[in-house]
């Protein structure tokens, strides 16, 4: 196999684009390939035109790149829109009997509907026929596909899909003479997990011992709620489908106050409704974790599309001044670790940790090593021990962190208030106590700075251009910088997976010697650029921005940087 192999599954909503794309990716992951996939779909349940891309590689991949080698098409529109993206050596696989003959080159026609009907009695498994045909052409073992289908489907569906796949394999063997130059094989003996960002994040929360979630559905984070809801009983966890986002965040704060690790998840619109609750968590110094999955705004915007437009908002949401932490994981794997870290920082510093993700990261599958659970550590921060006199929830301490206690223990009353309060948690209007409480809360930022993982400069030694990014653009930027470095450009990539508190001194040091600092961001105003300017006073004048609701491709970044180096 050449370095990477690119697939696309395209069709209407409701035609199984998502399932077949997923099965394809999973089949490749099980063979030990690195896999990255992304999804593009409209905000509707049936019809329209969606696609699911899968890139398989022998080395780690975190972006979609290059032309399509195999396009599995379920609809005419799926072919019309994408056949131009197919590589010269690539193929379009579809059912001419149902879609008719489209005048495009290099097609492999499989009578999928008919084969499904013959094998299973109905046409519902036609797509599985196409999937099997594609994998057969690539030398994938029928047994391995059948066992995958058996683990994915249940009951009758499993039986039918297996039959359909068998028919697909058989048809290709009997009727198709094309030989693919690339043939798949098992790489090593370890198969990888196939997870998208939301799944990885959910697993991270479980690993961190999260016991309570309350949330309201919203694209792109709904699958976190659904995954955890499905596992809750098994895990001894509670997931409450709240009446709205306001309830969700305040329930989470209540649960955390009562003693457990708790989180919520939402998108920008729902986050808007949580803003007042952020302030409550801050004032009561209650640790909570909030996942914010970005999508294009303002308002409802493009519900199923991609954007990184909320950084400014997350940095400054809510009135008044208080500390917070913002993590911006860049890959599915980082989502797992961000969740673990989020709960630790939240409890250690008794504040809100926001994990920013986005539609692209949330829904893109990648094949990753099994998460190493031995690396997971739990730090609940300072807990109250009885010997320390009468309990004061907001006791002044050197580092601003007051030992926590949970309500319900004899001899200990846990009192806290959303009004300004004294050490015991009671209302006060005293100006001195007020100032001390502000200092106590904001003072936590000092130690927090040490907790943030510093961004590492990657690429050329003394670069002439630095491209900075944050979150899910990682794969595209890294891929672009790699390519450019290979062509001799002295370029490097500075990526932020943990963005607040901002490591301003270190970043200042890195950037100040570089003649050109660019940002690549999936937004229109260059929010990271503004943050860098504010924190370091270093001008960032060059932006590669994309804000049409789609994720970056490495090629775009290469093109934009190319213009600069010309």
């Amino acid at each position, binding site marked *: 196999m050449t370095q990477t192999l690119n697939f696309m599954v395209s069709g209407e909503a409701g035609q199984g684009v998502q399932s077949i794309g997923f099965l394809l990716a999973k089949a490749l992951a099980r063979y030990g390939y690195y896999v990255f996939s992304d999804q593009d779909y409209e905000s509707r349940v049936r019809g329209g035109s969606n696609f699911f891309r899968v890139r398989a590689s022998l080395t780690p991949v975190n972006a979609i790149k290059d032309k399509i080698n195999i396009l599995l098409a379920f609809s005419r529109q799926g072919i019309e829109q994408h056949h131009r993206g197919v590589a010269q050596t690539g193929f379009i696989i579809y059912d001419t009997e149902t879609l008719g003959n489209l005048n495009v080159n290099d097609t492999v026609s499989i009578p999928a509907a008919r084969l499904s009907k013959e094998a299973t009695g109905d046409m519902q498994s036609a797509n599985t026929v196409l999937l099997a045909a594609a994998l057969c052409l690539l030398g994938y073992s029928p047994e391995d596909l059948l066992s995958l289908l058996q683990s994915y489907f249940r009951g009758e569906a499993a039986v039918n899909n297996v039959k359909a796949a068998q028919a697909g394999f058989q048809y290709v063997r009997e009727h198709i003479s094309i030989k693919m130059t690339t043939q798949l094989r098992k790489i090593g003996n370890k198969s990888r997990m196939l997870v998208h960002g939301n799944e990885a994040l959910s*697993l991270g929360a479980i690993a961190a011992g999260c016991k309570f979630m*309350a949330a309201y559905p919203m694209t792109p984070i709904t699958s976190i709620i659904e995954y955890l809801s499905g596992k809750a009983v*098994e895990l001894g966890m509670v997931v409450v489908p709240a*009446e709205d986002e306001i309830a969700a965040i305040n329930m989470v704060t209540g649960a955390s106050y009562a003693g457990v690790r708790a989180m919520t998840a939402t998108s920008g619109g729902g986050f808007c409704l949580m803003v007042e609750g952020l302030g409550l968590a801050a004032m009561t110094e209650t640790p909570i974790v909030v996942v914010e999955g970005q999508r294009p705004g303002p308002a409802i915007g493009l519900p199923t599309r991609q954007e990184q437009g909320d950084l400014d908002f997350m940095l400054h949401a809510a009135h008044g001044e208080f500390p917070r932490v913002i993590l911006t994981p860049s890959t599915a794997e980082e989502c797992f670790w961000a969740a673990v870290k989020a709960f630790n920082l939240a409890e250690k510093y008794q504040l809100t940790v926001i994990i920013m993700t986005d539609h692209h990261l949330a829904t893109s599958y990648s094949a990753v090593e099994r998460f190493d659970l031995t690396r997971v550590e739990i730090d609940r921060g300072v807990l109250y021990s009885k010997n320390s006199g009468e309990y004061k929830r907001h006791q002044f301490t050197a580092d601003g962190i007051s030992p926590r206690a*949970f309500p319900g223990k004899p001899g200990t*009353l846990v009192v806290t208030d959303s009004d300004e309060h004294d050490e015991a948690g009671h209302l006060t209007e005293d100006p001195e106590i007020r100032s001390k409480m502000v200092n106590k809360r904001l003072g936590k930022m000092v130690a927090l700075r040490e907790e943030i993982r510093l961004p590492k400069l990657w690429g050329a030694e003394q670069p002439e251009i630095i491209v900075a990014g944050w979150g899910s653009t990682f794969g595209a930027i890294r891929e672009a910088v790699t390519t450019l470095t290979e062509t001799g450009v002295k370029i490097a990539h500075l990526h932020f997976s943990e963005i607040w508190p901002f490591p301003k001194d270190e970043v200042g040091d890195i950037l100040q010697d570089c003649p050109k600092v660019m940002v690549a961001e999936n937004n229109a105003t260059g929010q990271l650029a503004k943050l860098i300017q504010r924190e370091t006073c270093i001008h960032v004048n060059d932006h590669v921005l994309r804000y049409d609701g789609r994720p970056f491709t490495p090629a775009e970044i290469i093109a934009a940087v190319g213009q600069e180096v010309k």
Partner: protein
Amino acid sequence: MSTLEDFAGALTPSWCPGCGNFGILNAVKNALVELNIAPHEVLFVSDIGQNGKLPHYTRGNVFNSLHGRAVPPAVAAKIINRNLNVIIDIGDGGAYGEGLNHLIHAMRRNHDVTCLVHDNQVYGLTLGQASPTTDIGGITKTTPQGAPPPVNPLLLALAVDCGFVARGFADDVAHLAKIIKAGVAHRGFALIDILQPCVSFNHKNTHQWYRERVYKLEGTGYLPDDKTAAWQKAQEWGAKIPTGVIYRHERPVYEEALPVLDPDEDLEHIVVSGKIDKLITEFV
């Protein structure tokens, strides 16, 4: 044995002399003492408003929330720790205006908490604007032409089948304490709407006004077990205003279907448990 002294508060009340909240405070203390509940077994979750200061004037665990948002943290805390007696103190503004959505859904789901609505028919802390329970035509600074018809909280509670729907009167401390006791003892959501004279801003529904109208359902032969009867009784408002339990009926409590959580659990054990390992395997 818990005593009234156990519930002596840290701060001196900043309520106006004559405020109905003093009666509510006393009734709460009495009810808890009579139920022999100790301060550490109580969690007061309070709203913002004059009502929200109550917990600071007695003793217990206290989580003072945002305006209209007392219900969500209260029910979540109860889910986490079932041993806590969770008492919500909230005003008519917070409960029936800003936070009504939470109240209705919490009653619907039926969490086992007790919700005391300090219903002075006015926004007290912000100095006297109309609230959702201000009587129809009531003139305030925000309703100079008169308020629209009020919300009837008892009817709303009945509409979502709340299992304990009651009305108390702040001036009748003994009776109110009895209702609160029953509410705390009730398995499920208990809504207690408490008529609370506000001497500074509500010059219509005064101590006197309520006293002339309020009567106790106990002894009238009324039984709080029929929803249609309750629906009719709950509409009585004017020359006579019923107090006592309007409706009572047990149904499944939301959190009883959920796993019991231990907030003190040593979290490291969760990680090494096989559960997450099995979940990870599902992704391979």
